[in-house]
């Protein structure tokens, strides 16, 4: 068993070959080591899912948590009479943001600067990490407090800061659990959703250092332990790092939506605040908040409103941080924007409702997606964000398998507060991957099968013959009429799922015998049936 030394914030990336994190067997919490690429780690989705599906504890934890949040969300969405109108507006506003992005970015920059903020631009993760590190170094700190932020997860900021000798302390409860366990997040909103209360207690006892030995697994007691643990950090922190839920172009106002008050602590008490925001998180006007402040909390935590929302505009003399830096991050977003179909993935406001309703996510968990963005939105966002390095089209890129991580049931589209048509984008990305494959001139069993099928189906005689041949498979089924093990190449299907046994006669055979039977039955009773029966 490894000995835990020092601050969790100083932990570094896993050092497996090719940046692929190698899980260590002696890690007590089964950690996923921090990858070199937060948007591309582990094996392909099918392989990773096969592994995570074996974890029954994970499935129970996720089943319980997602069922809880689905019920809450449904209840608070149902009480809003104009929910669909709000979704329509939210969707259109985000479309407008994408269409006017150059202008809105310039406007945001101008307004933040006018109010005493400093705006930085980052082409990629490395550039953003360098900017944040230099600010922390200029302040002479070896520790920063952090508000939960997907953008900083995406760029691997904590790991980069650790390499520079700066500890990043995660202050959101779920992020803290993940950080203490040296784990990776598995959900956009609740990164530790894969952990139950007993596991969280064990993590706190082993790693927090200042918890009472008799800590129970009652959520309230666990939350109080986190409060006590972080209090001193908040009161003495000099630099904070946050993300942003919204950046308002026409006023330069930034918004962070949260629950625990850790966000307020970080955004209010330190002298210096650095906010890392993706360029897509803009909204055009301050009053557009009236739409998103309704859509986001009900969709994410299933609350009418989250406990705390902080809004700030540059620097307010005498109140809050007196130095404010905004880092505007591209990191693949412009590649997503360039895709006519896929660009609406940038409308995402990170509510995570699509994760909570997804039958695939609920069973495989977030880690199987190999990205800090899991679930349905991750399946369309991750490949596109990594398009420049082969995320969409690379046959050997693990991200190219992500669009298949879906049954296309459409539940994600139904709950999306900004109406991102995730199933359509998934299908489009699948087609893109197949197209890219076509150029590779290798033996393709799928293509061969399709060609054969088209020859059979183009002729009635051949089709009838093929159908009769298929009924020979009827005997392969078990008592339940299901084939669960078949010889190759059908085994590729039955490895993952059951195959219904073919019926003992084809439709054509059944139809013909039905006609014959009808003629037989009709003869003695002509004139009396009068069309009674089947219509």
């Amino acid at each position, binding site marked *: 068993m490894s000995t835990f030394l020092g601050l969790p914030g100083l932990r570094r990336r896993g050092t497996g070959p090719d940046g692929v994190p190698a899980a260590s067997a002696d890690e007590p919490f089964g950690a996923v080591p921090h990858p070199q690429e937060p948007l591309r780690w582990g094996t392909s989705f099918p392989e990773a899912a096969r592994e995570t599906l074996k974890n029954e504890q994970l499935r129970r934890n996720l089943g319980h948590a997602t069922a809880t949040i689905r019920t809450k969300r449904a209840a608070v969405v149902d009480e809003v009479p104009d929910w669909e109108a709000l979704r329509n507006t939210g969707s259109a506003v985000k479309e407008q943001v994408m269409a006017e*992005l150059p202008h809105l970015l310039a406007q945001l920059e101008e307004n933040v600067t006018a109010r005493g903020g400093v705006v930085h631009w980052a082409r990629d993760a490395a550039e953003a990490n360098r900017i944040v590190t230099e600010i922390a170094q200029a302040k002479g700190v070896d520790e920063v407090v952090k508000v939960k932020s997907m953008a900083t997860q995406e760029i691997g900021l904590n790991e980069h800061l650790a390499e520079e000798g700066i500890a990043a302390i995660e202050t959101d409860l779920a992020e803290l659990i993940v950080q203490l366990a040296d784990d990776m997040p598995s959900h956009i909103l609740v990164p530790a959703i894969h952990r139950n209360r007993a596991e969280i207690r064990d993590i706190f006892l082993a790693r927090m250092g200042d918890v009472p030995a008799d800590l129970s697994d009652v959520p309230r007691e666990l939350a109080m332990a986190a409060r006590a643990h972080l209090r001193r950090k908040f009161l003495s922190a000099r630099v904070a790092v946050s993300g942003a839920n919204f950046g308002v172009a026409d006023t330069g106002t930034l918004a962070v939506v949260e629950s625990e008050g850790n966000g307020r602590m970080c955004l209010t008490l330190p002298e210096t605040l650095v906010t890392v925001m993706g360029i897509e998180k803009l909204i055009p006007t301050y009053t557009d908040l009236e739409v998103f402040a309704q859509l986001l909390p009900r969709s994410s935590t299933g609350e*009418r409103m*989250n406990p705390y929302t902080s*809004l700030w505009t540059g620097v307010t003399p005498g109140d809050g941080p007196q130095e404010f830096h905004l880092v505007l991050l591209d990191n693949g977003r412009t590649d997503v924007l360039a895709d006519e179909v896929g660009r609406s993935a940038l409308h995402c406001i990170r509510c995570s409702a699509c994760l909570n309703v997804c039958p695939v996510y609920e069973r495989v968990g977030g880690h199987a997606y190999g990205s800090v963005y899991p679930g349905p939105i991750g399946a369309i966002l991750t490949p596109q964000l990594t398009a*420049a390095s082969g995320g969409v089209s690379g046959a050997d890129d693990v991200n190219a398998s992500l669009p298949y991580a879906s049954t296309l049931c459409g539940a994600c589209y139904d709950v999306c507060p900004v109406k991102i048509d995730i199933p359509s984008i998934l299908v489009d990305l699948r087609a893109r991957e197949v197209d890219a494959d076509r150029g590779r001139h290798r033996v393709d069993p799928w293509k061969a099968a399709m060609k054969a099928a088209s020859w059979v189906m183009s002729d009635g005689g051949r089709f009838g013959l093929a159908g009769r041949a298929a009924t020979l498979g009827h005997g392969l089924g078990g008592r339940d009429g299901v084939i669960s093990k078949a010889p190759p190449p059908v085994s590729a299907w039955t490895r993952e799922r059951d195959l219904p046994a073919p019926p003992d006669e084809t439709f054509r055979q059944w139809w013909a015998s039905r006609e014959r039977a009808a003629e037989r039955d009709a003869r003695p009773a002509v004139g009396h049936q009068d069309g009674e029966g089947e219509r």
Partner: protein
Amino acid sequence: MSAREDVLRRVRAALGDRGAGTTAAGKVGTAPAAVEVPRRYRESGDHDPGSPAVLEQLVDRLVDYRAHVRQVTAGELPAAVADVLAQAGSVVVPPGLDEAWLAAAGDVVVHRDTRDEPLSALDLDAIGAVLTAARVACSETGTIVLDGEPDQGRRAISLVPDVHVCVVRAEQVVQTVPEMVRRLASHPERPQTWISGPSATSDIELDRVEGVHGPRTLHVLLAP
């Protein structure tokens, strides 16, 4: 080329500007169609600001969040303030607070905090409670907004003490989020804190637990 120019150039390329080169993945996108934003949602509620129905709804929502709410008359307010502060022992107040609210709280140690002479975070941590006014409240969501004006003070004072006593006047209570946001829109630059109940977390099995880092107790005194 600076990072700023480069990112903006990529954005233009992604939106189909043929003279802007390509994105990092070598793409040039298509120009999006002009967008008409429909606004068919409710811009105001069925009830007037400060009406009994709106106040009743606000109370219901706040109680649902485990906040403590009392509806008081102007005359009852000082006694109610003294009552909720009695246990805290000490209170921090912003510079522009109505001093009459403290008239009955003789036993409570009162600390004053201003932007020019702010108390430190450690000072605030040793104070039992904070008493503030509010800017606006929304009944449908049970939200109270502070915007840093002199009767509400710096953001830190309503954050660090463990008990927040907030006086909301009836005319400040609107029904819907759009009504609330439009009131705030007259001064969007003010630092705002939207508060919906005491601090809470849903991070353990998505069960809500009230009281984490922000004030664990929220008292709302609804005054005329």
